[in-house]
Each structure stands twice: as structure tokens, then as C-alpha cells.
């Protein structure tokens, strides 16, 4: 399934038609700090997503612990796992069901590019979820650590608000 990138870009530039300045900034801040993810764990990365929501890594600190089972109530879809050609239609339906504004985080190598399941002659895996719809944040790893998922969510918050609220940890 091919997206139409030009149309998406055009829509992004035109919408919203009316901008409110400071109110937009406040809305962006509110949206960024209360992202409601869709429970869309497909494979191994789902377990690390659950671990990120559990007590040690605690996504609740960032406002994102309310995993919604229904796409109509979610605003970020964390695609955690491999997308299959059989599953691709269902994933696109779920994406279409989410109300605007919505964002997509591709978690794990499978969601970014098909992961370790790409080999010459492969017949079942969609090589990356960005072949189906636009993705905002890519989190590499197989599976990425829960801290990496949290960093991905913070990056999404930075994309929404333009500012990063939490200090960036510099690797030593």
C-alpha cells in the first residue's frame, strides 16, 4: 500500500486553517503531556512496551500510561512488532480510525524496516510501517529498551511542543 506523501505534506501545511498562537502552544503542551497510546503490541516489542508501562520504567510519569484498546480513543499508535502482509489491512484500518491529531511511533527494527525478517525471497513481511502511513518517531532496537521507548515518547513531545521538557542524557 503506497501513501501519497505530497498530499500529506500539503494537508500538514494547510491545517489547522486558523492558528491561535499562544493557545496552540498550550494545546500542544497538553497533548504532548497526555498522549494516550493504542494497545498495539504485535510481537516481542510489545513486552518491552508493557515493561515501560510497569513499575520500574513507569510511563505514567510522562502522562502516557493510559493504553486505550480502542483506536477511537487513542492519539498515538505505538507500532510495536512486525507488520505482516495479512495484518497490513487491519493496521491501516486502525490508523484510519484514530481521530486527528494522531501520531505514530514505529518501535523496533521490524516496524522501521522489517527487522531481522527481511531476506531475499521473503513473502510475508511489510518492510516497515512507513510503507503504510506516515511515521513520526522511529525507535531502533530489537527490542528497544524501555528507556529507548521513553526517549521516543519524549522526542514526540519535542516534535509537538518544539521544546524538550526533560534533560537529554549524554552517553559517556
Amino acid at each position, binding site marked *: 500500500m503506497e501513501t501519497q506523501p505530497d498530499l500529506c505534506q500539503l494537508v500538514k501545511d494547510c491545517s489547522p486553517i486558523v492558528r491561535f498562537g499562544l493557545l496552540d502552544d498550550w494545546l500542544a503542551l497538553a497533548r504532548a503531556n497526555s498522549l494516550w497510546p493504542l494497545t498495539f503490541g504485535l510481537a516481542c516489542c510489545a513486552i518491552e512496551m508493557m515493561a515501560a508501562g510497569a513499575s520500574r520504567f513507569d510511563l505514567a510519569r510522562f502522562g502516557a500510561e493510559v493504553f486505550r484498546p480502542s483506536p477511537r480513543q487513542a492519539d498515538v499508535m505505538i507500532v510495536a512488532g512486525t507488520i505482516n*502482509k*495479512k495484518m497490513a489491512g487491519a493496521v491501516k484500518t486502525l490508523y484510519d480510525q484514530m481521530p486527528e491529531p494522531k501520531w505514530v511511533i514505529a518501535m523496533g527494527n521490524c516496524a522501521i524496516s522489517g527487522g531481522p525478517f527481511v531476506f531475499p*525471497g*521473503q*513473502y*510475508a513481511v511489510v518492510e516497515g510501517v512507513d510503507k503504510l502511513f506516515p511515521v513520526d518517531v522511529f525507535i531502533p532496537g530489537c527490542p528497544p529498551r524501555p528507556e529507548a521507548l521513553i526517549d521516543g515518547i519524549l522526542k514526540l513531545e519535542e516534535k509537538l511542543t518544539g521544546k524538550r521538557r526533560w534533560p537529554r542524557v549524554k552517553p559517556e
Partner: protein
Amino acid sequence: MNGKDTPLAPAPAAPATPAPAAPAPEPRPNPLAHLPLPFQTADYSLKGYHLDATVQPGQVVLAAQLMDREGFSLDTITGVDWLAQGQMEVVYDYFHPGRGFRAVVRARIPRENPEIPTLSQVFPGANWHERETHDFFGIRFLGHPDLSPFLLPEDADYHPLRKDFTA
């Protein structure tokens, strides 16, 4: 679902059924020698199974019925595509839940017209294994209630594990 609380099951001190006898390291005598199937003993420490039989495709249902009567359970059914020999091999693995025996029954069918009777009337568990083998190899299991794709998409018409498959 009655209204009273049933007492909690006690923590087990010993298994509910007698534990299976620990298998001896040297090959055991063939315990299925009384069956009319050509079982041969295999070296378990190399092969991972105790008994191995190659039968005609028309005999696999009879073999399954005999194994069922002996108390075996169906482990898995799979296929192997021998392209160079123009044949496909259907392999039936059995294990015994009580005695821990492992038996293998094999049958070879021609590659151009791969058909073999189904086991799903004897072992209902064969239903999914045969659907998967059909998905991967195109082997038709005669008498199977529903040979639609199991792991592949519903409209799949390709058989990926054949040696001449190209994506």
C-alpha cells in the same frame, strides 16, 4: 458453578499419575513390534526419536489409528520437499505422554500430484498441522474438512516452502 467455595487443591507432593520410567541410554527394544508397521529402532542420542517407519501413503491413516490405540499423541505433521527426487515426504511425529517414546512415520508422495489421506478423523489435532503443511507445500489432504490457508493470507495461492518457490 455452585455457590460454595470448593477447597483449594493441595500442593502436590507427588505427581498425580506415576512418573514415566527414566529411559535407558541404550536403544530400547521395539515396544511396537506387535504392530503391522515397519518400525525400526533409531539411535535416540543421535536422531532424537526411538522408532522410525516408512509406509505407503495409503497406510498413514491405519498407522495413526494404531498409534492412537497405543496411547500416542500427535506431535506434528510436516512436509519436506525433495525437489531433486521429484517427491515430497510427509513426516508424522508421535510422542507418548505416559512413556515418553518418540515415533516417526513417513510417507513419500509424487511432487506433481501431492495427495495423501487426512488424519483429522483419528487425531483432531491433525487439522491445523495439515492446513499448515498444505499452505507451505501444496500437499492436498484428501478428506480434510477445510483446507483453507492457515498461516498465509486467505487469498494466497503460493506455497512458500517449495524449493522452486520465488517470491
